């Protein structure tokens, strides 16, 4: 047994955190969110070479694996940084295996996204149908990064078989409608394909989607971990300055206990997330169950702790000026993103061998 990240991983986490602090302080991020345009962040993220971290070299990435991706997700959330494009890309990119051209374009900043609803477990989305000419027709609501993606990886059914096909988002047959989320650090869009041209992707669709599901669970859980850890920091800071009846509120047992319970959740979340990441990365036979447990537990705890943090802040936390609500909304969305706890609990229940 060995219970810590490697020095390399710690160094990476630190470097990325520093980069975020420099490039995307909250004051700047708020500007991007208010103007509803986060492209500045996204291009800088690509330009500074972070996009390929955690992506296998075979996919033109910089190596590393799901643990590095989880570290990235955790830090992005901790900074309340935009992450729809990044998440969509790392989930979809394995579908481009063997397509050097597309991979190069992707890590050059041309986002690729799975054409599935953002709120379902990726491999449970209903596949679309392809006609003989390879044209695809169908509507998919709430696609992560659906509004900005340059290409879509489309789960489709061809002669009764599940395949993945590539659709150019700029094809005339593609219509997309941005949907505004309460959490503006992520974005979705409804996408309608009307006889959109598509080309085949030579990967095992079932396998790619199953992997995407497990990876999505881990990365959304990591996001919730980052947001929760940050909310705990904010709550503790606040409770060390704010006084009531002449004493710091942090000295009230009710406040102290609430903060300590958040700490317990964060501690558990960290173990669960990185265990699941290692398990999925190592293709452990129970990997999917570990990922499911991480998604169900950590995102649910995130919601619980978001409420605690809000309560610990009092009314100040409800004001637009205060940063808490950025993380609060992020934690809330993480609960639904890529499948609500209930859906993942179904998987876990199977693990219980209940009829």
């Amino acid at each position: 047994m060995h219970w810590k990240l490697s020095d390399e991983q710690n160094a990476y986490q630190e470097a990325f955190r520093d980069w975020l602090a420099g490039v995307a302080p909250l004051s700047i991020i708020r500007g991007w969110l208010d103007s509803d345009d986060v492209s500045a962040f996204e291009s800088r993220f690509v330009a500074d070479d972070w996009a390929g971290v955690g992506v296998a070299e075979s996919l033109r990435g910089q190596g590393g694996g799901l643990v590095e991706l989880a570290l990235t997700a955790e830090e992005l959330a901790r900074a309340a940084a935009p992450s729809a494009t990044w998440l969509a890309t790392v989930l979809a990119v394995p579908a481009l295996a063997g397509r050097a051209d597309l991979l190069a374009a992707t890590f050059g900043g041309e986002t690729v996204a799975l054409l599935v609803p953002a709120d379902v477990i990726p491999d449970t989305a209903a596949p679309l149908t392809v006609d003989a000419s390879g044209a695809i027709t169908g509507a998919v609501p709430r696609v992560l990064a659906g509004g900005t993606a340059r290409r879509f990886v489309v789960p489709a059914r061809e002669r009764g078989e599940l395949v993945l096909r590539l659709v150019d988002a700029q094809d005339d047959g593609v219509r997309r409608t941005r949907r505004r989320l309460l959490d503006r650090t992520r974005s979705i869009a409804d996408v309608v394909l009307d006889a959109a041209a598509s080309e085949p992707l030579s990967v095992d669709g079932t396998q790619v989607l199953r992997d995407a599901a497990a990876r999505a669970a881990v990365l959304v859980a990591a996001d919730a971990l980052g947001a929760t850890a940050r909310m705990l920091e904010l709550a503790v800071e606040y409770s060390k300055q704010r006084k009531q009846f002449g004493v710091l509120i942090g000295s009230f047992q009710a406040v102290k206990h609430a903060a300590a319970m958040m700490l317990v959740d964060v501690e558990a979340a960290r173990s669960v997330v990185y265990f699941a990441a290692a398990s999925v990365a190592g293709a452990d036979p129970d990997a999917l169950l570990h990922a499911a447990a991480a998604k169900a537990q950590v995102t649910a705890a995130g919601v619980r702790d978001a409420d605690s943090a809000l309560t610990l802040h009092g009314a100040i936390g409800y004001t637009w000026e205060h940063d808490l609500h950025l993380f609060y909304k992020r934690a809330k969305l993480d609960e639904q993103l890529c499948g609500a706890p209930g859906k993942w609990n179904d998987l876990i229940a199977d693990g219980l061998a209940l009829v």
Partner: protein
Amino acid sequence: MVVAKPGRMDAVVDFELTEDQQTIRKAVAELAAKFDDEYWLAKDEAHEFPTEFYEAFARGGWLGITTPEEYGGHGFGITEAALLLEEVSASGGGMNAASSMHLSIFGMHPVIVHGSEELKRENLPRIVNGDLHVCFGVTEPGAGLDTTRITTFARRDGDDYVINGRKVWISKAMESEKVLLLTRTTKFEDAKKKTDGLTLFLTDLDRSKVDIRPIRKMGRNAVSSNELFIDDLRVPAAHRIGEEGQGFRYILDGLNPERMLVAAEALGLGRAALRRAVRYGNEREVFGRPIGMNQGLQFPLADSLARLDAAELVLRKATWLYDNGKPCAREANTAKYLCADAGFQAADRALQTHGGMGYSEEYHVARYFREARLLKIAPLSQEMVLNFLGSHVLNLPRSY
């Protein structure tokens, strides 16, 4: 920037148990399985010590799992000890099984680290072979959780000490030949530091000087919990562990391991309850349909499974840190909180899954439920864990 970016990575965090650990786990589970739920139900109802069980583990050499080899043990760490107690508890033996050997597993730590060679030679081998039962005499009614407030006093008298005082919640005192007894040799008010002036003994529980009264309690009834009234107990100085006045420090070493082991027992209990719930959910049919098909039953159990798994990870991390000589107070306390919480919740849900039958002792979940509740208050309450984390990890100011 690039310098910090990882290139190809090796396996990161290795969560696999070692082969030794897997073997221990398997062997313990097999041996414990020889004692079924009926055995524990009978012992619990009869308030009778599980001698057969205890002796089986003694014969198997398990009681010495952490005892150094030169004293007949195996010299394993807390990780292995935790696995042992977790499996013992998970077998359905629960706290009755775990408490019957809990102290033999790690309670002698102060003796091992600070005891005289003579004391070790005399006692440790007998602990390992199961012949010697020892109880842990620390808690006092007046002291709450601040051990420095104990008042049981050991007065030096020639080569002996004469001890008077009162202890409470002493597990297994009825069944024990000796007691690991914490006393004050300097009164609290006279001590320079409040942690000074405490002295630890390993000595005989002389029934003529110590009145032992079992406490009537809600569960874990196969192993007694007792009040001790100590009246002029004469103890030779040779029974003292380490230096006079240093007892508190010796005890302190053991606090985190204690919390980790209790966490492991809670975890095992939760596993046992969940196993029963799943079995009942699959077997019990209402209108030709197993009740396990109901989401209303499935989700809480699935959630409990995930919580137990999460708690287990934190526990493993804590024991790993301890065995690797790293600080682990944060993780040990978090593990205790999470395991006690998840364990009780699993037991509660298992009982609920059984409907009316859950209330009947014959389905055993009622026993698990009664035992699991204990772990939210012992060895320290969940609230005390939160106080610790709030004050020492989050550095929040002193409470009101």
